[in-house]
């Protein structure tokens, strides 16, 4: 059992506050992704859990044991680094067995576990090589195997795939997900790549300016972003926003059209994902500016009353720049945000 509890963790670097009062509980065997742009504090949070950084205030618990005062080696964690950190003076075998040797396990046990994890990561033919003789992808596999061989309660990964090329990244993504699901460890995975986050995570914590904005399942984060930041960060292309003026009783004027929405007298923002728009008889009047055929679909960048607006349409449609489209938003997918608090309005 390795439930991770992060309680009121804050971190300041001099005058700069990197993390504000973070509270997060990660279930046993859960795959939690910390997602955010660079500088949002996600790596700092991971390093605090790892023990490579000390929190200014707050507590970290793993499996019911408070660990924030312990050195990394006593926390029951293993970590995979962005630049792999494969020891250049040791063979792949000795790299994977490094932690086991530190635990003073007998030779045959080390050999058994190294060979098993090497097989799991498909690097059993590389065991005699040095890191200088490996490709980036192979080094990545060694780094993961080294962490897995420890059979840790918790595995921490800091952008492990970001140094790989796109194709390899996709392959490793699926493989890593499978291997980790089998290993029964709790995982924290830091990335800035929303596709990685969406495809791998049990739960995503979206971070922004040292705070967790939303922690929820990938589909929840995608469908019901808790804040404007999440809506604009997740999804490619991101959500569209239009100013909405209330006309009373849950009626709204958006882009010159009447819409139904929440009952409120304040000005709100209307939001809709580009793929939730359909060409229709009635709807938003959008002037096409740029048309990008992407094969699977058509990405049209338009202008709705001066605001940038994107629509993902069927690739069979013929749209030319300058065309005026009438786009109807799928009513159950429309979301509303308060521009002052930037939070979602139910």
């Amino acid at each position: 059992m390795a439930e991770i509890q992060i309680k009121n963790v804050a971190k300041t670097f001099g005058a700069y506050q990197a993390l504000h009062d973070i509270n997060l509980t990660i279930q046993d065997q859960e795959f939690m992704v910390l997602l955010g742009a660079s500088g949002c504090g996600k790596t700092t949070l991971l390093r605090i859990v790892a023990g490579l950084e000390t929190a200014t205030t707050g507590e970290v618990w793993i499996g019911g044991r408070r660990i924030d005062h312990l050195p990394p080696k006593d926390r029951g964690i293993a970590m995979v680094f962005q630049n792999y950190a494969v020891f250049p003076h040791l063979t792949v075998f000795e790299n994977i067995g490094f932690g086991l040797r530190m635990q003073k396990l007998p030779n045959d046990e080390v050999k058994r576990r190294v060979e098993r994890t090497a097989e799991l990561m498909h690097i059993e033919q590389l065991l005699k090589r040095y890191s200088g003789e490996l490709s980036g992808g192979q080094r990545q596999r060694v780094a993961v195997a080294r962490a897995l061989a420890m059979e840790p309660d918790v595995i921490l990964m800091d952008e492990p795939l970001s140094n790989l090329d796109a194709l390899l990244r996709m392959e490793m993504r699926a493989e890593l997900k499978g291997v980790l699901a089998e290993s029964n460890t709790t995982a924290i995975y830091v990335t800035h790549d929303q596709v990685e986050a969406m495809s791998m995570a049990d739960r995503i914590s979206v971070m922004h300016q040292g705070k967790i904005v939303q922690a929820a399942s990938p589909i929840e984060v995608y469908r019901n972003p808790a804040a404007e930041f999440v809506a604009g960060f997740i999804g490619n292309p991101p959500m569209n926003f239009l100013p909405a003026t209330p006309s009373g009783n849950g009626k709204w004027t958006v882009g010159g059209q009447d819409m139904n929405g929440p009952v409120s007298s304040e000005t709100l923002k209307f939001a809709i994902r580009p793929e939730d728009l359909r060409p229709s008889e009635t709807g938003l009047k959008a002037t096409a500016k740029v048309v990008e055929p992407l094969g699977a679909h058509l990405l049209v960048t338009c202008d709705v009353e001066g605001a940038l607006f994107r629509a993902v349409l069927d690739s069979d449609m013929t749209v030319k720049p300058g065309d005026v489209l009438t786009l109807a938003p799928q009513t159950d997918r429309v979301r509303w945000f308060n521009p002052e608090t930037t939070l979602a309005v139910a």
Partner: protein
Amino acid sequence: MTSVTTDVAAPDARKAGKFVYVTAVVLLCAWVLVPIYFLLINTLSSPDTVNSFPKPFWPEFDLGSLTFFAGFAGMLTALKNSILVAGMTMIMSIVIGAPAGYALSRFDFRGKELFRLLILLTRAFPLPLLALPLAVMFIQTGLDDTVFGLALVHTTLAIPFAVLITFSLFSGIPIELEEAAWTLGCTRLTAFTKVVLPLILPGITASAIFAFVISWNEVFAAAVLTIENRTLTAFLLQNLDTSPLHLKFAGGFILVVPALIFIFAVRKYLFAMWGIANR
């Protein structure tokens, strides 16, 4: 038309540039190599040839001057002292310098930049100014005329280089390697001995050899602070003054050659000291 003229002009400029470059390289090499060459010729020549002109292009391989030195009274003691002092300097400057280099590369602390500057400034302070107070202090503490006392002075001379070289070596090792070792069950100390040390050992060796050479070549402090226990440099300085020319050459030769060989062996790490990538 313009494209044609530039096409013609460019190779000319490149040729001229190359000529300047080659000339500079040749001149610099000659600056260093010609004296060493004459040293070699004169060392391996008989006394008559040394005093004659012109010199032969090839040395005669007359080992007379060198054999004379081998049998010269006090010579072997001086050699032993030199090796002892240089060896101690080597060990002390690494033991003191390497932790400083590690601290500079791994930790942020107040006055770090000032510390780096001060390390360099110790080299700007002229030794002759220090010689008298040092001699007085050494006599008071009983360190005068001892191998250890001289090694202390040489260590202060070698430390700046030891710090700078090891700083650059440690900086070349990603901190993630150490962090990975910590997460894999190492303490700070075991991570250092199992990961960092094996990686920088060649560089540390080079830095140690460089400290050895600094001590080996140092003559001023050696001449001031020792009387009985002279090092080779001080010993030769004292005796060669009154020696015939061919012995001066031979003495110079025995001093220069070990230093040259050592420096040649560690040259790529000396580049590293100034931040030029060597890997």
